[in-house]
Every structure is written in structure tokens, then in C-alpha cells.
């Protein structure tokens, strides 16, 4: 596998015509060229984030000095972020809300997707089309009516108001359905012959089998909700319900911007996701692959 795929694209990228393995005659082998390219692109990709991280350790005077490595290293910005502003509270709010949404959403979406993929009932395709169509409803357009709905249900200014409207999203249903369509039919048939009902098939067979895609979606739902900004802004006034993205917004005032503090806050907001990503990256990468198609 290694060699054929290597040459199939090495030629394109490296520009060396003959696909006869790594050509030693040339000063730069395609393999080395590809590695160099990968390194270069990786640096370009990561550098801005790195810049944010290191700049958050600079003082107000040096924060715009254009150097990657701080000359006056300080952790005051972070001390400030955690002591003067209830950032710990913001982090907890974001964590709690994202976690609850993720769990509820995965449960409901997998149930719905299972029905759409594996059960036969009249109007199935139409229903799926309708659900799929909700992907096209744009959030800014429905924000005011959504606000009205949330108010009527008594959801404003509460954790419930941050959680419940965010659960329902056709994207998860769509991806899970794709996954369930690809499961072998025999599994269910065997189970049905064994006398299992649909719930048992779902709970005992389908759910365990979908662990990889569920863990992928879990990461993404968590990520998306951690990063959400607009709805929490509209749905809450209570300072105790402030989520971390709103916390960053409160760092900006109209006439001055303290980049050192803002970047420290931004780092604090981004760090949990970066850590999550580093810890679970194998699962993430493996499972986006599963979730992508089939």
C-alpha cells in the first residue's frame, strides 16, 4: 500500500515523472519533498495558534512586538483572567451545557436515525427529506422566533434554555442514518428471529456497533456547543450563566483592547478543545472517517 499510493501522488506533488520508487539520482527524492511539504503546511497551519499561545504570555507593552517568543515572559494575564473575571465559572458553564447537549443529542439522534435507516414505515423518505431540509434553516433568520418560542416555554435565562434548543440538529441524524444504512442486514434479521423487538435490536446490537461514530459525533457536538456564541448571547442575561465564548466578548471594550488579556482569555477558551483534541485525536480522526461516508 505504501509504495503504490506514495508514487501515485508523489509524482504530482514532487513533479518527478517516473514512478519507479524513490529516485536516488535526484538531489531531492519525492519522499523528502513530500515530507518537506507536509512540514511546511503543518507549520503554516499551526503558527497562528502558536502565536496566540505565546502572545498570551506577553505584557501589554510587548504583545504587539511581532516576536513569537515573549521577551518579558509573564503569567499575569492568566492570573488576571481567572481571578478578576469568573472565567472558571464560564468554563464550567460551557462544559456542563456542552456535555448535556451532547449526551441527549446522541441518544435522540441515534434513535431517529435508526428508525429512518432500518425500519420500514410509510412516508419514510419524505420524513427524511423534511428532516434533511431543516439543515437549510439559517440560525440568524430564526433567532427572533426561536427566542419567542423559548420564552413561551419558559426557557430563557436558564440552563434548560441553553441546552434544549441546541439538541435538535439534522446533521447528526443525517450522518447516523448514513452509518446505519451501511450495517449488514443479517444482524437484525438474526436478532428478529431470536425474538428481539426493535428496541432490543437498537439497544443491544445497533447502539454498541455504532460506538465509533457516536464517539466521533460526541466530540463534534461537544466542540460545536463549546464554541457556540450567538444563541447563548440571546438566551441569557444572568451573569452566572455566561459561557466561555461570551466571556471573551466581555474582554473587548469599545475604545481600548488589551491584547494580552484578550489573547489569554482566547487561549483559555481554546485550550480545553485543544487538549480534548490531543487526547482523543486518534478516535477523532478514525471516526470522522467513519462518519464521513458510510
Amino acid at each position: 500500500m505504501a509504495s503504490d499510493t506514495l508514487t501515485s501522488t508523489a509524482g504530482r506533488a514532487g513533479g518527478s515523472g517516473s514512478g519507479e520508487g524513490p529516485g536516488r539520482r535526484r538531489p531531492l527524492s519525492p519522499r523528502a519533498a513530500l515530507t518537506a511539504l507536509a512540514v511546511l503546511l503543518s507549520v503554516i497551519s499551526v503558527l497562528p495558534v502558536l502565536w496566540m499561545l505565546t502572545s498570551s504570555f506577553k505584557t501589554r507593552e510587548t504583545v504587539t512586538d511581532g516576536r513569537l517568543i515573549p521577551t518579558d515572559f509573564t503569567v499575569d494575564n492568566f492570573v488576571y483572567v481567572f481571578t478578576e473575571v469568573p472565567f472558571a465559572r464560564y468554563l464550567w458553564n460551557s462544559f456542563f451545557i456542552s456535555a448535556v447537549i451532547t449526551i441527549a443529542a446522541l441518544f435522540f439522534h441515534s434513535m431517529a436515525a435508526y428508525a429512518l435507516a432500518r425500519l420500514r414505515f410509510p412516508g419514510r423518505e419524505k420524513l427524511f427529506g423534511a428532516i434533511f431540509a431543516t439543515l437549510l434553516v439559517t440560525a440568524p433568520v430564526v433567532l427572533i422566533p426561536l427566542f419567542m418560542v423559548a420564552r413561551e416555554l419558559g426557557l430563557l435565562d436558564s440552563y434548560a434554555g441553553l441546552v434544549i434548543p441546541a439538541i435538535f440538529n439534522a446533521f447528526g441524524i443525517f450522518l447516523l442514518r448514513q452509518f446505519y444504512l451501511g450495517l449488514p442486514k443479517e444482524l437484525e434479521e438474526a436478532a428478529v428471529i431470536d425474538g428481539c423487538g426493535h428496541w432490543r435490536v437498537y439497544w443491544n446490537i445497533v447502539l454498541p456497533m455504532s460506538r465509533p461514530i457516536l464517539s466521533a459525533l460526541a466530540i463534534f457536538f461537544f466542540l460545536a456547543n463549546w464554541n457556540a456564541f450567538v444563541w447563548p448571547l440571546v438566551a441569557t442575561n444572568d451573569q452566572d450563566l455566561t459561557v466561555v465564548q461570551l466571556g471573551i466578548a466581555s474582554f473587548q471594550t469599545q475604545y481600548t483592547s488589551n491584547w494580552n488579556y484578550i489573547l489569554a482569555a482566547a487561549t483559555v477558551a481554546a485550550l480545553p478543545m485543544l487538549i480534548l483534541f490531543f487526547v482523543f485525536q486518534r478516535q477523532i480522526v478514525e471516526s470522522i472517517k467513519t462518519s464521513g461516508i458510510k
Partner: protein
Amino acid sequence: MSSVAAKERRAAAATAEAPVSTRGPGLSRRHREWLAAALFLAPDVLGLLVFVAVPMVLSIALSFFQVSGFGSYEWIGLGNYERMMNDPLFWDSMKITGLYVVILVPVLFCVSLGLGLLVKQKLPGMGVYRTALFLPYVISLVVVGVLWKFLLDEQTGAVNRAMRAAGLDGESWLGSPSLALGCVIAVMVWVMMGYYMIIFLSGLQEIPKEYYEAAKLDGAGPWTQFRSITWPLLRPTSFFVLMMSTVAAITGGLDLIFVLTNGGPANGTSLAIFYIYQQAFGFGEYGYASAMGSFLVLIMVAVSAVIFKFTRGGRFDDGE
């Protein structure tokens, strides 16, 4: 919510456990399947109805009213739609959206596909490269906006400092309309490329390697291999990426625009979605904004219907 779910679970379990003996004449089994499907679907369908469909219908209803922003409504029929037709700023924003989508989607597609092909290679340290390339995706658009505003600053930003160090004049990245739109697109590509890269990677890894071996025996070069094997077999993935990124391009990015450019300079980054947002929440023109929003949704439905048709109802069964 959770108690409802629990009830359904019990109900579903009950129907599931009753069965075998009453299996009988098939009809009841079919009905049982219908019932199970209904229960399985109930929470999500209800939720989507209340939190997506009802607001959408409400929003369409609002588009026929002049709304003062203080709770008074006046029926004006198609007045908002007429205003939309004659509003040069709306059509400017549609043009900018068109330009944005037409540039962003193909660029993102090519970059992600290129990266997918690259990270499929077995190279030393490939895990690190994949990580690095995916990393920007996990950062929120609010943070991304703050970060790039900092980096692209005309006088003190790192980008211009680097350019000056290289003997070039700095640019006012966010200060001229076309450059600013370019920056928004570039930042979006930077954020999203890792995600689509992984999608492409998974598509690429599903192509049986025997095809390439056979092609090589026939003396096909890398380009021929790409054209005759990779490209056609990757078609389902490509459609998926195209569809996702188009929808995301038309409706997304509001947080980023809000933080990075606020629609400026000179409305140069005022995408339709931003203009709608501005009319609604900046100026209290909820009725008018609803009309434009409904129009945008209509366009999205049309665009998606085309892509949906190509992808055969969202099923990516076969590429050939």
C-alpha cells in the same frame, strides 16, 4: 425532556417485548414496526418541529409584516419583498455572497483534497502533520476572529511585520474591501481544511489498492491513476464535501464576520447572512429581515436540491 424519553423507552421496550407469539398474520408486525418507528422518531421530530420548523414558519409569517421592533405588527403583504427587490444593498450582499461561495467552496475543496492526498502517504511523523493540519478546526470562530484581527493588524500585526522584514510593504488586509473578503475566505479555508481533509482521507482509503496495482501494471502514471481511479471513485466523497461546504458557506461564518470585519470595509464583507442579521438585530427590521431570510432559504433549497439530486437522495451507495 428526559422523562418523555424515559416514557418512550418504556413504551418502546413494551412493544418490543410483547411480540413473538402474536407475530401472526404479518399485518400486526408491520404495524408494530410503524409504532416503533414513531416512538424512535418522536423526540427528535418533536424537537425539530418546535425549535426549527415553528420558528421558520413564524419567520415566513413575519415577512409579511412591518415590525417596529417594539412588539407592534402591521400587515403589509408583499411589501417587504418589494423592498427587497429594490434594495441595492441586499443585491450587493447577494453578489458578495455569490463571490464568496464561488471562491471559497472550490478553494476549500482543492486544498482539502490536496491535503487528503498528502496525508494519505506513509511518511515519518505523519500523525503529527495530520494533527497540525486539523488543529485550527477545533477553535471557535470567535477566537479565530480575535486572533486574526490581531495578526492582520495594519501597523503591528505579525503578518505585516513579517512582510516588512522580507522587504515588502505591508498591506491593509482588513482595510480594503477586496482584500478583506480574501482574508475572510483564507481564514475560513484555514479553519475548515482539516475537517474536509479527514473526510477526503477516509474516502481515499476506501479505494481498493488493487486498482492502483492493476493500473501500474498497465503502465499508468500518477496523473492517469488519479484521473482514472481516484477521481471517479472519490465521487461520493466529493459530493458530500461540496454539499456540506456550500451549505456552510451560505449560512455560516457570521461569528467570524462579526468579530473580524463587522461587514466592512465599505460593505465589502457584508454577506447576505450578515446583512440580514444587521437589519434584524441592528436596526430592528425583523419583518424585512425575515423576508430576506426566507428568500435566502429558498435559494439554499434550490442549490441543495441540485446537489441532493446528484448525490441520489443523500445515499452515497455507488460512485460509478
